[in-house]
């Protein structure tokens, strides 16, 4: 992608390696690029979305070493060497992850813009707490905003996914 040199500034780019969805990428990245913008522009992984740029809406959620973070408030250079998972990394061998399947079955998707963020926060929640109460679910996902569904179907999907994962005792990816 284009490297921008501002008026009279020195070369600021850093050569870093990013581990995304199990694949290693050698990139030349300016320090002021967020992980969100590098994922979308330099790696073409557009499943992670810009919603607010302020860490409040959850649309930019990715997992770093399994933990959900706001990629709009994270510098790409700060996560080199860490294990990054985006929505694109969830399905395996062309098969949807059970969480993804339950979101589809529960009709928890309308416009779909918030969906990648919700699926990843659900993954993080169920990895940590396989049997959450409704209250625990709502507290955990409160950083993800949906303007279409009213959340009821989303919580249903999360409960269905939790039940299904408990049955199959899936191993953490």
């Amino acid at each position: 992608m284009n490297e921008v040199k501002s008026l009279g500034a020195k070369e600021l780019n850093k050569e870093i390696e990013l581990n995304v969805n199990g694949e290693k990428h050698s990139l030349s990245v300016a320090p002021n690029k967020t992980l969100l913008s590098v994922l979308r522009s330099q790696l073409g992984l557009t499943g992670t979305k810009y919603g607010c740029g302020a860490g409040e809406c959850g649309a930019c959620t990715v997992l770093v070493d399994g933990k959900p973070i706001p990629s709009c408030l994270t510098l790409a250079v700060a996560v080199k060497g860490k294990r990054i998972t985006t929505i694109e990394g969830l399905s395996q061998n062309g098969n949807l992850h059970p969480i993804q399947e339950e979101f589809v079955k529960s009709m928890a998707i309308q416009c779909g813009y918030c969906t990648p963020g919700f699926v990843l926060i659900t993954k993080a929640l169920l990895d940590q707490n396989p049997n959450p109460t409704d209250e625990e679910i709502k507290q955990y996902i409160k950083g993800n905003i949906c303007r279409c569904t009213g959340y009821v179907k989303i919580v249903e999907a999360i409960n269905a996914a939790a039940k299904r994962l408990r049955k199959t005792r899936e191993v953490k990816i």
Partner: protein
Amino acid sequence: MTQEFEYIGKSIPRLESVPKVTGAIKFLDDMTLPGMLYGKFLRSPYPHARVISIDTSKAESLPGVKLVLTPRDIINMLGKMPAIEQNLYPLTEKARYVGDEVAAVAAVDEETAEKAIDLIDVQYEELPAVLDPEEAMKPGAPQIHEEAKSNIVDQKRLRAGNIEDGFKEADYIFEDRFQVSKPAHVCLETHGSLSSYDTLTGKLTHWASTQIPYFLCLGLSEALNIPASKVRVINAEAGCGGGFGSRASALPYDYCSAIMSIKLGKPVKMVLSREEEFMATSTRHPMIRESKIGLRKDGTIVAYKEKVILDTGAYGTWVSWVAALTLSTAPGPYKIPNIWIDAYSVYTNTSVSGAFRGFGNPQASFVRESLLDIAAKGMGIDPVEIRLRNIIKTEDLPYTTSTDSLCGVAVLRNALIR
């Protein structure tokens, strides 16, 4: 029937759910085209100001900047603007609200475009601003659109029966002043468009996440003087990341991404930030309603009178339609023989009010139902009961109301009882 069907009566997952849940489906900002440039707006920091001069030289000499546009640069390109966007210009020399688009830039990437915006020097002459619609209605208020006679852009009225007789017949009269606020749609996907003009064929292809692709096509064709047969509007693959009415207009970025693409012969994408969403996309129409209801002893409504002021903001998107609907829905599902409502739509130096789910109905219904609750309390009648006494019942159907509307549905009564 006990027959088992394969599809009827079943919950069938939507086709687009799978690419949505994998993140594969493309929203507008997920799209890139070869040679694509990124556009950004320079916005007025003042609610009401004239642009005296714009110095674009520093922005133009920033490496990576391909075009800087000012209102003068595009005036000759503009044809007829669509009726629903009364006076909504792609770039303006008179800023009418904080966020009004004054200049635009196209550059090789978003960061350069944003840097270039900071380098444009605009000299403004601040003008007195009017933020309150009642103030804006007064003679002598700052004139927001000089071509218009006043800040009152539209006036509508609803009449039925004889309102004076109605209130004379009323045993109880209740009135109050209500204000309905200015909510934003806050779609999770911000607004934007991607235009690609082919200089050889003269064809414009325009991607947007839009609720009105056909209107947009005609709108671009008329505004930019391109035959409609050469304008193709394509909704982004994923559709809208939320619409709710906010994407029911052609907006400045639609025109500007197209104009910049025409001038450069390259694709140009413009996407708004969240702050720009709040500042410069539309909201629901805030209203002030002074409303008065007259009821007989038995709780039946005999008269309903309102003075409604719609604050349409700096430009009149959809205002005539919202005003019409806020009048026609004012009586609600009730039998009201005498009605007198005046609606004034007024410009103010605030962000644009436009289409937002409900389209005038929520405001009308909120006020009417609140007043009915006040009446019920004042008369000592149960609030459900008072509605049952007034509602158009199933056995009345089809029912022509006092304002000549034909009512075909009356499910509310059952809903109320339940």
